[in-house]
């Protein structure tokens, strides 16, 4: 029978992708699920909200506050500076090689993150960093005397921008390319100044992309571990750092707390998505 044969065929075809799905389940979905469920389990195997409740106490509360703050700041500044740089490189009048160079460098810089990046900034803005010494000796101004330290939350923000800005550049470039020259010229012929064009046409058209990029940058910053660890060794409270403490045997008395922290991270990311979706719908209503 024809139908019988076709129907039996399909399941066989799915066999071809089975290895991959099995692998993903074994090493991605199952571990992730274990973490999420573990956050709500007590040692006896029953369900409890204790662990999650502890997240609202110190030091976890501060860790979340810091992480969210750092992520908002680096996503915001990364988006703004990334956009300005990308536009500067792509706009008319700028030689082609600038864009190519910026794109290549962005690919490298976005991947340079981690311990090497932390070491590079220690060499730059550390207590005996090159720039610190330059400022002290040549300008008579030592930032460390005025409360600055690269090993602080501010330092982390400065360092994070090193991979946030390039990520923004790579993500927003296509959106800038998508700004048709006709729109600019039409606006001009109707009497609009450059500023008016950006305000009424340019930015609104790019807003959906900018929002997406912001969310990406936020998540990127929120889940970063190595750079902060390399820079501060864990002295600044951030959620990934705190999870790291649990895993490396420091401090935490309750293994489920690490899982609760991970769960908390997911909640923050999910909340960000919840905020993002209606904003995105509104921003792109003209294209639906």
């Amino acid at each position: 029978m024809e139908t019988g044969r076709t129907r039996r065929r399909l399941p066989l075809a799915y066999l071809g992708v089975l290895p991959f799905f099995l692998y993903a389940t074994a090493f991605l979905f199952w571990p992730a699920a274990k973490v999420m469920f573990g956050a709500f389990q007590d040692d006896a195997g029953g369900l409890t909200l204790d662990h999650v409740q502890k997240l609202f106490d110190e030091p976890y509360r501060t860790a979340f506050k810091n992480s969210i703050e750092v992520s908002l700041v680096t996503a915001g500044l990364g988006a703004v500076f990334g956009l300005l740089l990308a536009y500067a490189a792509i706009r008319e009048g700028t030689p082609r090689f600038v864009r190519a160079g910026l794109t290549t460098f962005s690919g490298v810089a976005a991947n340079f993150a981690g311990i090497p990046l932390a070491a590079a900034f220690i060499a730059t803005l550390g207590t005996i960093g090159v720039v610190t010494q330059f400022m002290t000796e040549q300008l008579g101004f030592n930032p460390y005397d005025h409360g600055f330290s690269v090993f602080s939350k501010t330092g982390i923000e400065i360092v994070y921008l090193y991979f946030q800005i390039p990520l923004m550049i790579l993500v927003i470039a296509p959106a800038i390319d998508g700004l048709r020259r006709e729109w600019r010229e039409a606006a001009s012929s109707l009497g609009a100044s450059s500023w008016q064009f950006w305000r009424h046409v340019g930015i609104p058209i790019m807003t959906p992309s900018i929002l997406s990029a912001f969310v990406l940058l936020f998540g990127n910053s929120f889940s970063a571990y190595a750079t902060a660890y390399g820079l501060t060794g864990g002295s600044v409270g951030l959620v990934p750092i705190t999870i790291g403490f649990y895993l490396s045997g420091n401090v935490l008395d309750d293994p489920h707390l690490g899982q609760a922290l991970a769960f908390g991270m997911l909640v923050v990311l999910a909340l960000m998505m919840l905020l993002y979706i209606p904003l995105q719908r509104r921003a792109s209503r003209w294209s639906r």
Partner: protein
Amino acid sequence: MAGVRLQSLRRRFGDVVALDGIDLDIASGEFVSFLGPSGCGKTTALRLIAGFDRPTSGRVFVGDKDITGVAPNKRDIGMVFQAYSLFPNMTSVRNVEFGLRVRRQGRGDRRTRALELLELVGLGHAADRYPHQLSGGMQQRVALARALAIEPRLLLLDEPLSALDAKVRVQLREEIRRIQTRLGITTIYVTHDQEEALSISDRVAVLSQGQIEQIGTPAEIYGAPATPFVAEFVGTMNRIESTVADPDNGRVDYEGSSLAVDAARGRQRGERVLVLVRPETVQVEAAASSENGLTGEVVSQTFLGSVTRLRVLAGPAEWTADLSAERAAALPIGAQVSLHFPPSSAKLLTLEGGAAEGLEAAAADSVE
């Protein structure tokens, strides 16, 4: 409303000369088309007038004002682009309002005026639709309304209909002309479609390689082409190389046959000329003879709807003749026929060295 004057407008891009010294005077309220093949400089000229480009030398005047150095957003010119110029993030009405908003007109006034203009172009019902919800033709109408909203002194259109279907094109071009006449706004219209240009313009400027080949009314351009390029580019034209044989009686010699051409009077005997005859004036009959006749053989027939186009090999050249379908049916391929045309209907152009090149270029670019 204001007239436009172009004075020795020249634009060079490195070694390439896009515009080679254009001089033109356009009267207030006039509808002028810039017609020519791609690369002829028509869009370049338009963009110079609009201000999106600066001339290498020369000046642009609108009214009495020299606007050559003025920024595009201060020129008070309305412009319609070929495509994609509507702001995608705004509805039709807000697109049309944009120019007024920039001029800080009040919300109520702007909306009223915008809706008025949308009505004028027949899109009052689509006011709240976004561009991607509109067809190409509708988008261009909104673009027109938007350009007119600011009551510009000059309206520029850059091949606005090229991206649209043939039927929509014909419909829209007539509407554009109607609106333009009603508002009396000075208009420059760029196109490569000669039928478009001839059907709606007061005057047509034919451009080639950065220069104006001829400027005149559509009838003049079509009926009395001033150069071989214009003759070939505008409509189909028989161009027959001949020699002036009898200047007193107006006769030329074509491959041994004598043809009566009034325009040959007063020319030099022996002068090499190009005889220009429109296909619709060529008569074709079965059998030989007639005083202005040539004999030849029908080599092809093409049904064009309103006429059937015959190609007749007479002498070294293939002549083109447009006949009604019935008459063409009597003259199948292979038929021996005689050709003749009214002596007054043919034009003559002096055949110079460069004329042959101009013809080839025109033949390659002409749109039938």
